[in-house]
């Protein structure tokens, strides 16, 4: 029983099906671990242990009655950006420290319908703004591999909880790399699907045209299991798209069945020199190149492609995302919900102090940047120009994909750094340098573990796919994981038994 949390999602499903353990036992195992160990890493903001126990019991009864849903009774947890009916949803902010949503996000109800059990709400950078979870009102999260290191952001709580063995899988959201970068820092696989694949209804908006929910787990197949119930058209989200529905797990199984010695025969992997340039840590580069070598050994062809200069992409992102954020966060004004300052003297005082006191510095910085970019007189110079560059980025990807099937790069330029390094914002923003172009282009991408630094910190490789090709990304990462064991390494906390 002590090793339950080291099992894959598939092993958990099989175990439940074969009555090796019940959902109640499984759930209890995770709750026990969270209770004993989360104080070390601070990955949860809200625990829902009691409802989880009740749900697990109900799941066991349903399974006994013949309910065949594969994910029935499998635990998970949500990033605190997703609205959960009757449960606190804070988005990592003091602004929403008291906000109990009256409704469920679409993905929350979908995962619920699949029979999964939610153990709680996971810590995150405030309103998903940040790259190391240091902007959360609920405190930073420690990396389960090394408690002095950051877990990455903004889905840092999700990554840490999975890496610590508190949940097998967790939801995340990715606006500029917020699933992939923490997955990379915590030795996980995480996928950001195509924009429009997963409903954004009920996901508190940061930058609407870039935000996309996705899944995180210890393997590509774990990610596939959780992503499956998340996808699909949602009539409540006008940007969610009706598109053919893949079966990710089935696709993986089919590909594995068909694979020979050289499973990647015919696969062309694009490598861009722009993503192996200055600022890239040498250990990260070595691990990424070694992984590419492995892909080649397994039959893939490496081709050179060109994509937009990451520095231009970074500037574009940090113009557009704050612009949208400044507008999206206007509703947090102290009038109807969330934090309200004490004894406002008048309306302007209510707005000013509620927002000054309720938002942290990183959120305020981005609101101000975005407000400036949208202001009369600056709009064309900043916002309009950034939109034009965004179209060029899309075009560059289109051209790159003419000669390859997937594009590979390091996920982040470094492994997890120390929080005390206290980066200035501009340097921290550089951590997103390889991930953000994907959001600007609306493409799917995943990060998979491809090794450890000499200090024992995980390193991630990013795979970028064409629109709607999540299945190919998951399958590619999965087949790689059949021939390697990077994803089977466990963090310090995961190895602890309670």
């Amino acid at each position, binding site marked *: 029983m002590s090793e339950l949390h080291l099992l894959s999602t598939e092993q958990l499903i099989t175990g439940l099906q074969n009555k090796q353990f019940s959902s109640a036992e499984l759930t209890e195992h995770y709750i026990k671990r969270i209770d004993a160990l989360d104080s070390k890493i601070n990955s949860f903001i809200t625990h829902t242990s009691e409802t989880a126990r009740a749900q697990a019991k109900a799941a066991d009864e349903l399974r006994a009655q013949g309910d065949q849903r594969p994910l029935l009774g499998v635990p998970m947890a949500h990033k605190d950006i997703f*609205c959960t009916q009757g449960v606190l949803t804070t988005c990592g902010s003091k602004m929403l420290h008291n906000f109990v949503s009256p409704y469920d996000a679409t993905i929350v109800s979908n995962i619920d319908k699949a029979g999964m059990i939610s153990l709680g709400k996971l810590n995150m950078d405030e309103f998903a703004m940040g790259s190391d979870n240091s902007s959360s009102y609920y405190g930073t999260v420690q990396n389960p591999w090394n408690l002095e290191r950051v877990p990455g952001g903004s889905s840092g709580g999700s990554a840490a909880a999975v890496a610590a063995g508190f949940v097998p899988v967790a939801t995340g959201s990715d606006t500029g790399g917020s699933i992939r970068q923490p997955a990379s820092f915590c030795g996980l696989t995480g996928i950001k699907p195509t924009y429009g694949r997963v409903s954004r209804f009920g996901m508190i908006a940061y930058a609407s045209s870039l935000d996309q929910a996705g899944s995180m787990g210890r393997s590509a197949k774990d990610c596939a299991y959780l992503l499956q119930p998340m996808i699909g058209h949602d009539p409540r989200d006008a940007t969610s798209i009706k598109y053919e529905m893949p079966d990710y797990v089935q696709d993986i199984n089919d590909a594995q069945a068909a694979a020979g010695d050289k499973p990647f025969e015919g696969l062309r992997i694009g490598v861009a020199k722009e993503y192996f340039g200055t600022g890239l840590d040498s250990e990260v580069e070595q691990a990424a190149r070694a992984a590419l070598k492995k892909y080649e050994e397994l039959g893939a062809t490496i081709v050179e492609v060109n994509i937009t200069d990451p520095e231009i992409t970074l500037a574009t992102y940090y113009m557009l995302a704050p612009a949208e954020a400044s507008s999206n966060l*206007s509703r947090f004004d102290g009038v109807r919900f969330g934090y309200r300052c004490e004894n406002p003297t008048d309306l302007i005082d209510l707005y000013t102090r509620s927002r000054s006191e309720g938002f942290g510095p990183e959120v305020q910085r981005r609101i101000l940047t975005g407000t400036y970019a949208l202001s009369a007189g600056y709009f064309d110079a900043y916002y309009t120009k950034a939109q034009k560059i965004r179209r060029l980025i899309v075009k560059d990807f289109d051209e790159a994909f003419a000669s390859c099937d997937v594009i590979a790069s390091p996920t982040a330029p470094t492994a997890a750094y120390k929080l005390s390094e206290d980066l200035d914002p501009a340097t921290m923003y550089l951590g997103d340098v390889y991930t953000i172009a994907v959001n600007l282009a609306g493409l799917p991408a995943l990060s998979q573990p491809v090794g450890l630094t000499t200090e024992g910190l995980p390193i991630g490789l990013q795979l970028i796919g064409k629109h709607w090709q999540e299945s190919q990304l998951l399958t590619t990462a999965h087949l790689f994981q059949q021939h390697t064991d990077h994803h089977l390494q466990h963090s310090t906390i995961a190895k602890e038994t309670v």
Partner: protein
Amino acid sequence: MSTATTDNNAVREHAVRKELFVDGYEVVIGIEIHCQLNTESKIFSSAPTDFGHEPNSQASIVDLGLPGVLPVLNAGVVDRALKFGIGVNAELGLFNTFDRKNYFYPDLPKGYQITQMANPIVGVGYIDVVVNEGEKNEYPKRMGITRAHLEEDAGKSVHDAVDGMTGVDLNRAGTPLIEIVSEPDMRSAHEALAYIKAIHQLVTWLGISDAVMAEGSFRCDCNVSVRKPGADLGTRTELKNLNSFRFIERAINREIERQIDILEDGGKVVQATMLYDPERDETRVMRTKEDANDYRYFPDPDLLPVRIEQHTVDAIKAAMPELPVARRARFEEALGLSEYDARILTGSRQIADYFEDVVAEIGQQDAKMAGNWVMGDLLGALNKDDTDIIDSPISAKQLAGMLKRIKDDTLSGKLAKKVFSALYEREGGDGDDAADKIIKDKGLKQETDTGAIKAMVEEVIAKNEAMVEEYRGGKEKAFNGLVGQVMKASRGSANPQQVNQILKELLG
């Protein structure tokens, strides 16, 4: 006169009407109209748009702007806006997009209003109006429309519900609006009023809005400036939220006077938003340009562009009702109605439809008679009861049933008035034959039997020798007296023409 046949350019040409000048100043007015579209649910949510409910009972989580919610466009508003665009002969925005207008206000739940800035659904168009309609100095004029765009309404602040507090009612938040922006083509309060009334008639005619001013579903902002003829445009002020035809005219005139007074005193008009106070009949500055917001418009990333196919436009065009101007022209030309009658009978689409339903029953040759009954008796009675024609107690078929009895001489004009009153009181039931029932039940049939009338006439002659003598002595008036006696004897049922004829014959 029929504006449909007037040369467009001649109408558009603004003859400088010196009689419009006020103290030697030319007035320039442009108008923005916020018109609520009559969809059942809101523009971006499924909450109902009903008016007059408990505060915040008609607002969904989307209207409340809760974290995480997203807007989804109600397709019904697109159809309605396209109808309007076709109705004002406009270029249609077949690719139109939504933008966010950002500002803070307690009744604006999201901190931004979703509107159409860059690519509106309706582009440049025009509407032909008649200024001072029905009066001696009436004249036609073409008013330019710059654009019309879709947007959501905000909620409202409630200042008097709780002492010392301001409440927010978001029932109205998310109500679909079309904002109609005119060219600065109006040169007087009368012209402004004519334009506003024409737009009001059009939107109700098209059935896209209830346009009830008192409920705020049709609101006007007027931009007013004055200048010496030939000078550049003067500084304008904006009169906000005018919500009755009467106040619009008064408010504009007060504002014109205010501006001229300032200029005559050597001062400068300051660009400002003005409020009109009907109690004191004056305009007051609400805020000046200095506190104007920077709205930071940008495309709303939550809503995809709306692409409208030509076949959709074609289908809407094919289903468009005949518009007031065209219908009026047809009433005059095909039905031979006078200009005055045609105008009254196209006062609203419901009146015109009712009238045409009657005509369809009794035939075009009797359109004039149908028109007289609809305009005179029916609208008069409805007006007295403050009832809309749509709620008329007499259906078009019932009225036609009565008119048929006039035509076949069953009813005289006098008897018909009695039948009409009974119909109005619903005494004939709900059937199309209500008039016949009333005639039968009340014995109101006109006497047309020559023998019977002759007998009555003979009796009257015998009983009124004096009068007969007078007539024979050359007093024509006495004849009318005798007719009256016969009618009285028949209790009004005798056919007056027959009475006349027979009386003349018998009196030689």
